[in-house]
Every structure is written in C-alpha cells, then in structure tokens.
C-alpha cells in the first residue's frame, strides 16, 4: 500500500480524543494509578500554587512527551532513561526560571516542588510507556491528558482545602464575616497535609460511585 492511498487520521479523531479523556477519568494518575501523591498533598493548601503547578506540569509533560517521541527512532535503548531524564530536567529548569522571572511570589511558595516535578513518576511513566512508541501528536495529547488528570485532582483538593481551611478562594475571603461572628471557625486541620489525603479519598469514592468500570469484581 503506497503512502498516498493511506488516508490520514484527523487530528481530533475519536481515538486521539480518547488519549485525553482516559487519563482524566478511567486511568487518572492520582485517583486510579495513585501516582504523584506527594505534590498533591504538599501544594494544595491554596488554589493559586495548585493551579501554577498544574500548568507547569502540563507544559513539562506535553513538551517532554513530544521531544521523546521525535527522538524515539534514533534513541539508543541503552541510554534511553538518561535521555528522558535530561529532557525532563531541562524542561523543569526552564519552567522554574520562567516562574522566578514572572510570578516570583508563587515560585517562592512552590519552592522545591517545581524542582520535584522531575521526580514525578507520572512524567517518566508516560515517556517510557507511551512517547517511546508513538508519534509526536498522540504523544502530545497523551501528555496533556495525563497532566490534566493530575491537575484536576490537585485543583479540586486545593479548592476544598482553601475554602475550609482559610475561608478564602484565591486569597479572597468568600465565607461571609457574619458566619465568623456566629462562632464559625476555619478548620486549621484542613491546612495540614493529612487532610489532603482524606479529600483525595473522598474524590476516589465519588469517582467510583459514578464510574462502574473502576469497581473490581470481587
């Protein structure tokens, strides 16, 4: 079969869209694969850092996936992990530098966690499992999908933790002063990391309630 007669797959075919949708729900990195928990606990006390970290992870994952996918044919298998690490590390340093230059206070809040994107198992996992064997466009979508699946959970957790723990959203007070006058108190416990794990647990429970495929047979 010559190349001319082969019909090109549309960019947003159902198969490609599945690459984005699956990791958001059915194979969500946090709630189903239970990866990247460390940063999910650490940066979710406030919404703003959670969103900035999400955006950073999206950039790092999408670009690393595409780069590794482009390199996949000439890449000597013996040094593939090193190459993947160099790509991820370079991307993370770039993102860190950009954050320091343009959103300095957020970058101070995130402190080590931007650097720790390197060790986020989701990223290496996707490079090794997907980008090494697929074309750049699907690899790009897969990267976006997984980073989104990770980020959505981060943002949901951060929403509840900031609301219940500080009574604010994006540092703007949303719980009316009248509540406090009646004796309502911010729940300091929600600010601590263990509570993030409980929120993640509740999300897993809700997700499984609505997604029958995830429930094991026995």
């Amino acid at each position, binding site marked *: 079969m010559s190349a001319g007669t082969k019909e090109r797959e549309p960019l947003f075919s159902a198969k490609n869209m599945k690459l984005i949708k699956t990791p958001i729900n059915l194979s969500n990195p946090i709630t189903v694969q239970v990866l990247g928990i460390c940063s999910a606990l650490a940066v979710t006390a406030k919404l703003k850092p959670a969103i900035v970290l999400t955006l950073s992870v999206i950039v790092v994952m999408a670009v690393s996936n595409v780069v590794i996918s482009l390199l996949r044919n000439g890449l000597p298998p013996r040094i593939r992990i090193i190459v993947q690490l*160099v790509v991820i590390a370079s991307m993370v340093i770039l993102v860190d530098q950009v954050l320091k230059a343009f959103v300095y206070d957020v970058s101070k809040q995130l*402190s080590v966690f931007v650097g720790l994107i390197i060790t986020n198992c989701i990223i290496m996992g996707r490079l090794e499992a997907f980008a090494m064997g697929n074309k750049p466009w699907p690899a790009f979508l897969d990267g976006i999908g997984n980073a989104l699946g990770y980020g959505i959970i981060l943002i949901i957790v951060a929403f509840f933790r900031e609301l219940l723990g500080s009574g604010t959203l994006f540092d703007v007070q949303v719980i009316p002063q009248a509540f406090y006058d009646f004796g309502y108190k911010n729940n300091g416990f929600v600010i601590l990391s263990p509570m993030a794990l409980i929120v993640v647990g509740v999300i897993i429970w809700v997700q499984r309630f609505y997604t029958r495929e995830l429930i094991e047979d026995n």
Partner: protein
Amino acid sequence: MYTNGYIFRYAAIMVIIAAAVLSTAAVMLKPFQERNMAIEKMGGILTSANVEVVDKEATIDMFNQYVVEAIVIDKDGNVVESIKEGSKQDGTAFKLNMKKQLYLKSKGEDFQMPLFLIEKDGVQSYVIPLWGSGLWGPLWGNIALKDDLNTVVGVTLDHQGETPGLGAEISRADFMAQFTGKEIFDTDKNLVSVAVVKGGIQSKPEHMWPHGVDAISGGTITCNGVTDMLKDVLECYEPYLKKEN
C-alpha cells in the same frame, strides 16, 4: 544495534543542546529575576519600618519615596557614602553583599555596612539589613530602630529552607511582632541586642525582658540562629550607633 561510538556521540550532542538552551534562557530571564529579588528586598526594608507595601509594582517608587537617606558606614562607624537624592537602589548601600561583609568582619578586616533612613509621616527610623544562618540554610531580614537608635520599630525575617512548622515559623507575623518595642542597649549603654529565649522571656529576670522574645518550640537551632544573626550584625553598627546617640 547501536555502536558505542554512536551512543557517545548521541549523548554528547544531546547534552550540548540542553546546555545551550538552558544557558540562553538563564541569561535572558536574569534581568527579570533580579528585579523581583530587588523588589523583595525593598519590600522587606519598608515593611520592617511599618511602611505597608500593597502593590508590588509600586515598590521601587515607594522605596525611593520613603527612604530619605541610604548610608554606607565603615567599621569605625564613619559614614562612607550617603545618597539622599535620586534612585537609591543603584547606590552601594542597596548593593552591598551582607554575607561578604560579615565574612570580612569575622576575619578582622575592614568592612562596610548599609543603613537606610526611612521617614514616614515625619517619624524617622533606621533600617539595618540582617544576614545569618539557621539550621538548614541562610536567614535574612531587616531590623528597624527608632530615632533613639535603641528601640525596635519592627523586624522582618525570612529564610531559605528552615523546617516547615518549626524553624520556618520565624517568618510568621506574630513571631516577628514580638520584637516591636524591644531595646538593643541596656541601661548602661552596652549593646545586648535582642535574644530569642528558649523557655520564654518571662522565665528570665525582669531587667532582661526588654532584650528578649519567646522562642519557638522545636525550632531551637533556628531561633539561636536569629539571636546570633542580630548580635553579629548589630555589633558592626555599634560604633556608629554610639556615635550618633
């Protein structure tokens, strides 16, 4: 199969490309990052003297408006440089590296120290930048003194990586607020600085109360770092403070 030569060439080229990309980015973004750091430093100086910084973008203007004099002193307390007009962030006082000057001091060599005179609503205060070390890394901040050069108006403290929840609590507002109203000279005009006292300042004799604040439980080494930092830095200013007083 890939030959060893191919693998080495591959790795070498990859590393060179990565290095080129990263160094280009670092050089291009440096001016923005330095501006952010300068703004943060100015914010600290202003905050310690109770000048509230609301808008980050306006910090540089506010700095030049409220700082009426940027002074550099030497180890005998003589004024070496004094800028009263124009942009004070370009002067030596703002650019001096505290770490290096304190190193020179520890070697017994000549050193220079910065001092900022801030005037707000007719009230003058002297801001002294601080630099020291905590448990895991450097500590820094500012201490503002009233025009009697004795009473503390306020401090700001910051750190690179003290233990969250323990040592890192030094940068909390309620810890820093304890310093307000403390005195760095005793009644005999000896420099005693302000100490962070384990077990609480109330556990000490009453004449020491103006010279100490309560430490943080579990953050002893960081708190001792703050005590040492204040003492070490204020010693450099002792000749100047005594001369002016």
